[in-house]
Structure formats: C-alpha cells, structure tokens
C-alpha cells in the first residue's frame, strides 16, 4: 500500500506543479500592465518603474515564478486591488462553498445511488423507465434555471425558504441550513442524474456476474445478494464517477452562488475576473486547481480502499 500511495501522491504533485505554472503564465498573459493596476492612478514612468522593481516585475519570468512559489508555500498569496490579503479572503470564503459543495455531493450521491439501484433491480419495469427518464431530464436541465424556478416557487410564492443570502453555521445553524437547502439541491441535481445512470449500469453488470449466482446458490436473502454482493462492486465504479464530476460541481457552484446571492468562493472568482484583479485571480485559480487535484487523489485512494485488487498486488502462488 505504501508504494502505491507514494506513486499517486507523486503524480498529483507533478500535476499541481504543472498547473501552477499554467496559472502563473496565464495570468501574465492577461492584457494590461500589472504595474498600472498596482500603481492606481500613477502614470509617471519612473514611479511605475519603481513599482515594477518593488514587485519584482522586471525580473525574468522563471525568477518571478520561484519567488511566487516561495510566497505561496508560506501561505502568502499577495494582496488584491483593495489591499486585502488574498489568502485571508480565500480562507473566509472557501468554507462557504465547501459546505455548499459537500451538501450537494451528499444529496446527489445518495439520491443517485438509490435511484440507480432501484432502476437496476427493477430493470425493464415501469419504475426503471421512470427513473431513467427522470435522470435524463436531470442531465438536460440547466440547473441555474432550476434554481431560478425554485426561488420563484419556494421563496416568492410560498415563502417557505429565503430567496438568497447566507448565514454562517456557527451563528445560526437552522438559518444556515434554510439558506443552503435550495442551492444544495440545485447543485446536487445534476450530479444525481449522472450518478444514477452510472450506478444503474454498474449494478446491471454486477447482477449478471457469476459471483452473484454463487451468492444465490448459497441461499442468501435477496437483500443480501443485491445490497451486499452486487452493490459493493458497483460502488467502486461509481466512486470514480463522482470524483470526475467535481469539476462540474465547481463550475456549478459558481453559478449557484450567483443566483442565490451567496458570497462564496465561486462568486469571488467571477468578481476577480470582472475586476481584472490579477493577484486575486491568480490565488483563486491556483486554489481551485490544487483543490481539484487533491480531491482526485482522495478519490483514487478511496477507490483503492474499496477495490482490493488494486490495493494488494497478487502474490504468485
């Protein structure tokens, strides 16, 4: 297990480094002179040259990169246009989006797995067609539209839930959940559709496998056969799928926050780009890339925990 883990972590690190370079170069490619942005109203070339020197902008790119990496590793992502620490801003906003994403994943996976199992077990019958169609519809719905409609229905018409905004959990747990319910459902709906279809497909494969026939020959209850033997092997496939959907989840979070007026990490990203706040953009995109790679790594590890064939290299016997 150790060797396997090391290889995976190593690969992840490589990807992170490459991604950071991409971020670094990408931001440098943006139009506009950073010195102007940093200098505010200054137009005097000498002052600008001084600013450039201060910020190390006159150094060759690789040197700048190393400096930047050095700062990053110390937790310093620079300051944004309003002279606020980028790291601080990110650290305050990130948990909000993480909560949203976490709830969405829990909701989406649970619904998707349940629906997928039911559809597979009742293959060909009415509930299968119904579930599959709903899943397909779920894939076709632009979920931000779903969000708008839900706001109209639940907030404007029925006044059951607030139309937007955010309340920290520590401050008011119930209020926090009230604000999070609709966004989490909206965000998780797309995920549940994908998960459902994959789960159904994986379960159908499992249910046809020889080992399921063996399980039946052992006289095990149907619940044991489906819920224990078939399900276990299907979950393995589905875990990878959930991991792959995380990118879509992040994109989704951005829009969901926009609609529901949640000042989270997603909103931060859009604002940063629209305001051409380079330091902020850089920090944000880097965090996203790193976070994504880390999560993928975790998914890989989870997969190997579930699938003993990967974890244990077969002994020759």
């Amino acid at each position, binding site marked *: 297990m150790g060797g396997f883990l090391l290889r995976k972590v190593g690969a992840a690190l*490589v990807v992170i480094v490459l991604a950071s370079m991409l971020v670094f170069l990408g931001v440098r490619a943006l139009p506009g002179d950073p010195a102007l942005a940093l200098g505010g109203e200054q137009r005097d070339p000498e002052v600008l040259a001084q600013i450039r020197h201060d910020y190390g902008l006159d150094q060759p790119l690789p040197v700048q990169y190393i400096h930047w990496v050095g700062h990053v590793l110390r937790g310093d992502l620079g300051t944004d246009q309003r002279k606020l620490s980028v790291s601080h801003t990110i650290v305050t906003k990130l948990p909000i989006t993480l909560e949203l994403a976490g709830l969405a994943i829990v909701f989406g996976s649970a619904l998707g797995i349940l629906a997928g199992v039911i559809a597979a077990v009742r293959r060909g019958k009415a509930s299968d067609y119904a579930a599959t169609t709903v899943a397909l519809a779920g894939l076709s719905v632009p979920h931000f539209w779903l969000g708008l409609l839900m706001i109209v229905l639940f907030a404007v018409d029925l006044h059951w839930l607030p139309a937007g905004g955010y309340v920290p959990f520590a401050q008011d747990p119930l209020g926090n959940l009230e604000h999070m319910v609709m966004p989490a459902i909206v965000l998780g709906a797309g995920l549940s559709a994908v998960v459902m279809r994959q789960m159904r497909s994986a379960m159908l494969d499992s249910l046809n496998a020889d080992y399921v026939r063996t399980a039946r020959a052992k006289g095990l209850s149907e619940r044991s056969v489906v819920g224990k033997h078939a399900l276990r092997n299907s979950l393995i496939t589905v875990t990878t799928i959930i991991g792959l959907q995380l990118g879509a989840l992040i994109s989704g979070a951005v829009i969901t926050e926009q609609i529901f007026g949640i000042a989270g990490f997603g909103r931060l990203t859009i604002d940063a780009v629209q305001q051409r706040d380079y330091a902020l953009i850089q920090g944000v995109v880097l965090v996203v*890339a790193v976070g994504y790679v880390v999560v993928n790594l975790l998914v890989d590890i989870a997969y190997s925990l579930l699938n003993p064939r990967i974890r244990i290299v077969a002994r020759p016997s």
Partner: protein
Amino acid sequence: MTVVEDATDLLSPRARRRRLLRKRLARRPFALLGFAVAAIFILAAIFAPWVAPYSASATDFNAVLAKPSWDHLLGTDELGRDILSRIIWGARASIQAGVLATCLAMAIGVPIGLVAGYYRGWIDPVISRVTDVVLAFPFLILAVGLAAIMGPSLLNATIALGVGAAPGFVRVARGETLALREEDYVRAAIANGAGDTTIIFRHIVPNMTSTLLVQATVTIPAAIIGEAVLSFLGLGVQPPTPSWGVMLADAQSYLSQAPRLAVYPGLAIFFCALAFNLLGDGLRDALDPRTTR
C-alpha cells in the same frame, strides 16, 4: 450450394451494421422523438428570419411584460420584445455554440486521443497527464479566463466550451484506438506491411465513428447548457443579441413580476438538451452489443 437468404447477405460488413443500427434505432421511440425535436430546433435556428414572427430587437413599449396573447404567443419581455421570436432567434446562438464547440472539441480531442492510443510508448502517459491538468480547470474557470483575456463574446465562449469538452473526446478516442488496434483485421494489415497512416485512416477511424457520434450527441447538449451559463454570467453572447442564457439573465430582475421571462427560455434549453440526450442515449443503446434488441 449456399442460398442467399436476402439482400443483407450481399452487403459489406459495415453496410450491414449500418442497416442493423437503423433497425434497432427504429425500435426506440424515445430516440426517434429526440431526433425529431432536435431537428425542429435546428431548423428553427437556421430558418429563424422566416419562422420568427418578430425580429429579435423589435421593441414595443406599449406592451411591456405582456401576458401571452394571440399577438405575442409567449408574451413580451421588459422592453416589449416578443419572447417567442427571441427564443427562435436565440436558438441560433445556442445551437451554433453547441455544435461548433463540439466540432472544435472533436477536432482537438480525437487526433490527440488517436496518437495516445496508437503509439502508446512515452507519449501516452504525457498526454494523459496533460489531459488531467486541463481537467483540473473546470471549464467555467477556463471560460472566465478566456473572457478576461480576449473579452466576452459568443466566439470566445464557443472556444472555451470546445477546449473544455476536448478531454472527453481524447478519452473516448484513446479508448477506442486502444481496443481497435488489437482487432484481427488491424493485425493482419500490419502483418501485410501497411503503413501507420493507412491503418489509422482506413481501419481505425472509420470504426470509431459510431462511438464518436454518441459522444458528440451528448456533448452538444452540455455545450448548449454551457453557452447558456456563460451568457447568463455575461461572459458569452452580449446583449442585445438574443441567446437563451442572456434571456435568463435579464429575467432575474423580473422574477416576481413575470416569472414567465425565466420559464420559457429555460424550457427551450431543457427541451433542446433533452432531445439531444435522448437521441444520444438511444444511439448508445442501439450500438451496445450487449442489448439484444
């Protein structure tokens, strides 16, 4: 003496497969429905100038936020523009973005996947790593970045969507190539001294078209929705050009007064995407050797 049973026996294997595919598709009403609806949308987009009752920017300040009537079948928006017409005109932007982005994704993704799967060696892991890195940036961030660099526009949105969808095609093309190169006829061709280009273009590519087709039919709706998202955020089509996403963005301010401004464009996106998804699903099912019908 063998008797020819019917004309199918005389067809080449590929033609026989195509006929079988058509038969199996015909048995799937949902797929056909999807095909029909998708065709309607596409035709509406192409023939918009003739089909739409009004032009997309024709304002009428006497009929602002009007309810549906015979004059305006779906009502009007906050500037008195006919919603139905805007939806029809909007189909242009959305479907254009969807189809072109998918084509771009194919043009980028398939050759890369082919190379990775065919030559393997050192280039395969490199390509896989790079694909992972690209995937590390959710397409939205990419689009946002592109919009920031080059300014928001439909073209840039399309490019961003295409680049974002390319890894999907890289994966599919690579997978298919890996499988196809083990086929007997490919090995026979290699044993007969055929060059790489011949093998790739004559044996491998034609046999992956069906899988690529399935991937395309499910990428298009994702791209359509993607365009809507980008336009909604102001990163794609710029007003006053209509697109379904722009209409939804405008609708936000009038949610309580006239929710229909949000409902109709959303329904358009939904039905269009659903149509393509049904078609793609049916195609995938019909091509799957495991299903017996």
